[in-house]
């Protein structure tokens, strides 16, 4: 089975925020909730780099681990999804997620945050694929239509790639070889560093990223 992943190529990202809006318009996400965001390092000085961040659909997802009601699940494609009917809006996933992916429609007093919302890799939720209920709760299910996430497909410079990790690694390697640099894959060690199926202790000293991904899972495992 495919293993769905995101890559953001910082050498290409120009901080245009198209991924942010592509997501918003595809899923009709309201003001204040952003499943994806672009972060700029060294803003305004040489070395400025931008990176688009959202749920990375981690192998050993911290959100899953800490959820008190166990509302998360993982699909055969490695996409981390959750069930909004079960979510109690406690915010634990928000504390745990390294990427700041979980979003809450409210920031209310008394911990009233509403149901958590996050990037679904455009794979909807547990409701029947393509149903109105699924759309209302999770947005579109593009995978079921044979399409990849809107953010990656619309990226202005093809900096953000989404899809099967092996395919992405091939695309990325081709690029990295062409330019002979910038082979770091941002966030992959954190997200996919720990192999699926085996428990392992989290590593706070996690390295920024593996060098040129020799294989589909970022040169690790």
């Amino acid at each position: 089975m495919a293993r769905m992943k995101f890559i953001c190529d910082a050498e290409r990202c120009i901080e245009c925020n198209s991924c942010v809006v592509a997501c918003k318009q595809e899923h009709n996400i309201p003001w204040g909730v952003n499943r994806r965001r672009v972060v700029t390092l060294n803003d305004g000085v040489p070395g400025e780099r931008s990176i688009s961040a959202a749920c990375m659909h981690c192998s050993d997802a911290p959100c899953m681990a800490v959820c008190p009601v166990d509302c998360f699940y993982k699909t055969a494609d490695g996409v981390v999804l959750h069930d909004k009917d079960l979510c109690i809006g406690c915010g634990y996933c928000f504390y745990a997620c390294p990427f700041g992916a979980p979003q809450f429609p409210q920031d209310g007093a008394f911990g009233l945050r509403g149901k958590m919302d996050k990037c679904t890799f455009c794979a909807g939720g547990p409701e029947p694929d393509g149903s109105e209920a699924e759309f209302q709760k999770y947005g579109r299910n593009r995978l079921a239509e044979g399409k990849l996430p809107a953010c990656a497909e619309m990226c202005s410079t093809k900096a953000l790639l989404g899809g099967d990790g092996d395919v992405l690694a091939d695309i990325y390697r081709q690029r990295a070889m062409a330019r002979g640099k910038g082979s770091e894959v941002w966030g992959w060690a954190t997200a996919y560093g720990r192999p699926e199926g085996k428990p392992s202790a989290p590593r706070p000293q996690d390295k920024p990223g593996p060098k040129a991904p020799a294989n589909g899972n970022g040169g690790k495992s």
Partner: protein
Amino acid sequence: MRNSSILSAAAVWVATLSLAGAAVAQTPALNPEDAQRARAQQQRQRTQPGNDAPVWRDVRYGEPKVSAVRGRETDVLIQSEGQTWRAARVPMATTGGFVFALALLGILGFYLWRGPIELTEPPTGRRIERFTRAQRIMHWTLAIAFTTLGVTGLIITFGKNVLLPVFGYSVFSVVAMAAKILHNFVGPVFVVLLPIMIVMFLKSNLFKSYDWPWIKRFGGMMDRTGRSEVPSGKANAGQKILFWLMLVAVGITAAITGLILDFPNFDQTRQTMQIANGIHMVAGIGGVILLAFHIYLGTVGMRGAYDAMRHGYVDESWAKQHHRIWYEDVMSGKASHGDRPVKVVEPGRGAA
């Protein structure tokens, strides 16, 4: 209850200040170290164009960068603290659960071995006022809040492993949701009541010289005959320890950390909330353990203790046996409830 409004105000102030403190603590400031690193990066861009290693190193620092998307910490790319929190939370919960379970087992064991502490002399029928009406109302209000918080907290923390397999996802989700909402709404009530309670019971819980022998001999509680109880004041040293631990230490800690978690709308960072969550969990588990001891001794553990809080009066014999110094103070008229003496009801007369 004249003081209550002042006390409530004080409580609000404590809460506000603690939150403000948390907010101030996380205001980003460019310290010389960061500035140094930024300069080094810029330099590197000039001398070694294309070497992005410093940029990548910077990703891990988790401090604010720049993002057009607004919201809490949207400008932080990777927060490593989440991993730490996740990693620490598991052993904390595990250990906490064990300790809680062991404590309950211990109480059960003690009960089976010692049985309830019985009165050694028959009741005289002369009843002494132990708690005023206000104190009792206060106690029970807080007791309900404390218990609710304890139970709902346990559901949130351990329900996934204990209740989920029994109830199934849908039902458990409803239970957990109810637990979360109760916990979040009762919490602030607790926060308001707690300081009032502390002030109300503060005087009788100040340590006195006669408490030391009590502690040394554990009040003589291990004597199954119950005849070697060490004299104590209105509250014995054990009760005082419980007061300081459960209400003051645990209560205030849980209250402050709880407020940080319960009101995420003050821009507190995830790290603040993670730390608060960790402390809250430890305090919470500590709290329910102490609560268990307290409930035990207040109910099945000691004959007559429940009546004291239920009706406010204890029998003369009970007072003499368990709180001799207080009893003597009452008899000599030294003890008082604030501005009035302690009522003593002669046998056959109705309670005041």
